[in-house]
């Protein structure tokens, strides 16, 4: 009898809190978005399931010696998982379109305005007494505007681990929502005529350029902004393995087994931060709102910079590709392509948008370096 009583006392039905029930619902929603809506499924499925596991009452799995917590300590606190993912992203990224049209880097630069505007927004809410974010926390929230999952997780793990769950969920959710968030802004800020602009075909990029590029980028980072070196260094390393042509077996493993294994444990670890106590908080709500604002501002600044460049440039630039500067690779580039096709059915912008798209990754990493330097 006593034993049956103990089973009852240790059962979920007896122990579960309202907050945990709410979090289970939130996590099922993330799984729904990932599986049924196919929004960033690699991360939303793993984060969502990790969140379910971390809200099971009375079990050490997301805490103490539990697998998810150990994985968090080993992979997120040290920054190892986001850095390895960045290496994988490097191995998966083709910098060819950027090399063919370097000035699209400016679009990736402009879109980072979303990051700093959001930082300001978070500090503004604090100023108004609505929220209470420190500079570190505000900086971590701002990085959501970079639209780059591993960068956001890396920065949040360094500056504001207590907000990591909310920041990661916001970053991936909005990256997933890019096809809904961006088009209205794009149509608002461009004329039909601008959207119809056709761009000249990209030149071929030689193997030598592809090999030298990651090394040059790394050396520039080393000389100008070392605090961005871990993120950009791993990106460059992955890309060098991809392009150098002599270590294909390492590049293949990086693009497949390694990035997949790390994605699984990164997702579960991030999910382990979706416990009710940490997530169900006014700050989460404001992070979600600020993240949305960040995306909108980033999209707009990319677009406006593209309009400016179009005036200056000798060859025409379709302003739509500026919106791809927020990163969210390759979703944002595809959205630019789709909106372009609606205005002009012969206008294939995809490769042109890949330039600002990967430029956005570099830009966000630079912004992250600045944040880490000043806010920590």
């Amino acid at each position: 009898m006593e034993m049956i009583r103990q089973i009852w006392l240790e059962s979920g039905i007896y122990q579960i809190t309202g907050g945990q029930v709410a979090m289970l619902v939130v996590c099922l929603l993330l799984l729904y978005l990932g599986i049924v809506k196919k929004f960033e499924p690699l991360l939303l499925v793993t984060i969502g399931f990790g969140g379910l596991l971390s809200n099971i009452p009375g079990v050490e799995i997301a805490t103490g010696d539990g697998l998810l917590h150990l994985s968090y300590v080993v992979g997120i606190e040290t920054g190892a998982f986001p850095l390895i993912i960045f290496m994988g992203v490097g191995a998966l990224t083709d910098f060819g379109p950027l090399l063919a049209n370097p000035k699209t880097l400016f679009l990736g630069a402009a879109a980072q305005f979303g990051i700093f505007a959001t930082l300001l927004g978070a500090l503004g809410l604090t100023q108004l007494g609505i929220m209470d974010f420190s500079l570190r926390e505000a900086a971590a929230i701002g990085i959501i505007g970079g639209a780059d999952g591993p960068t956001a997780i890396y920065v949040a793990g360094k500056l504001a681990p207590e907000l990591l769950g909310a920041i990661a969920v916001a970053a991936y959710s909005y990256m997933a929502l890019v096809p809904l968030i961006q088009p209205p802004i794009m149509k608002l800020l461009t004329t039909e005529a601008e959207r119809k602009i056709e761009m000249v075909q990209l030149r071929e990029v030689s193997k030598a350029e592809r090999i030298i590029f990651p090394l040059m980028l790394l050396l520039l980072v080393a000389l100008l902004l070392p605090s961005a070196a871990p993120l950009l260094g791993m990106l460059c390393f992955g890309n060098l393995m991809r392009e150098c042509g002599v270590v294909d077996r390492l590049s293949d493993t990086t693009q497949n087994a390694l990035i997949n294994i790390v994605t699984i444990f990164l997702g579960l670890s991030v999910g382990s931060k979706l416990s009710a106590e940490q997530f169900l908080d006014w700050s989460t709500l404001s992070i979600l709102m600020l993240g949305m604002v960040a995306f909108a501002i980033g999209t707009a600044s990319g677009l406006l910079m593209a309009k400016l460049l179009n005036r200056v440039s000798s060859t025409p630039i379709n302003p739509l590709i500026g919106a791809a500067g927020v990163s969210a690779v390759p979703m944002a580039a595809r959205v630019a392509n789709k909106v372009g096709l609606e205005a002009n059915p012969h206008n294939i912008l995809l490769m042109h948008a890949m330039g600002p798209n990967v430029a956005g990754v570099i830009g966000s990493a630079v912004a992250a370096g600045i944040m880490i330097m000043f806010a920590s």
Partner: protein
Amino acid sequence: MEATLLEQGITLMLVGMGTVFVFLTVLVVGMTLMSTAAMRLAPAPDTAGVTDEEIAAISAAITQHRKANTK
């Protein structure tokens, strides 16, 4: 104190956007110089020979890239 925090934020925004632009401008200059040098040292005809294979490789990579990010 809080006023200072917002001021810190504004400075950080100005310095941050400045750094991003400076860094990426230097990168644009670097890439342009590098590409010019690379094309001079290994002129177009040489690389043109590799083109067909490269195009296949690039498109395969893009496909893989998309698959990795959207499946």
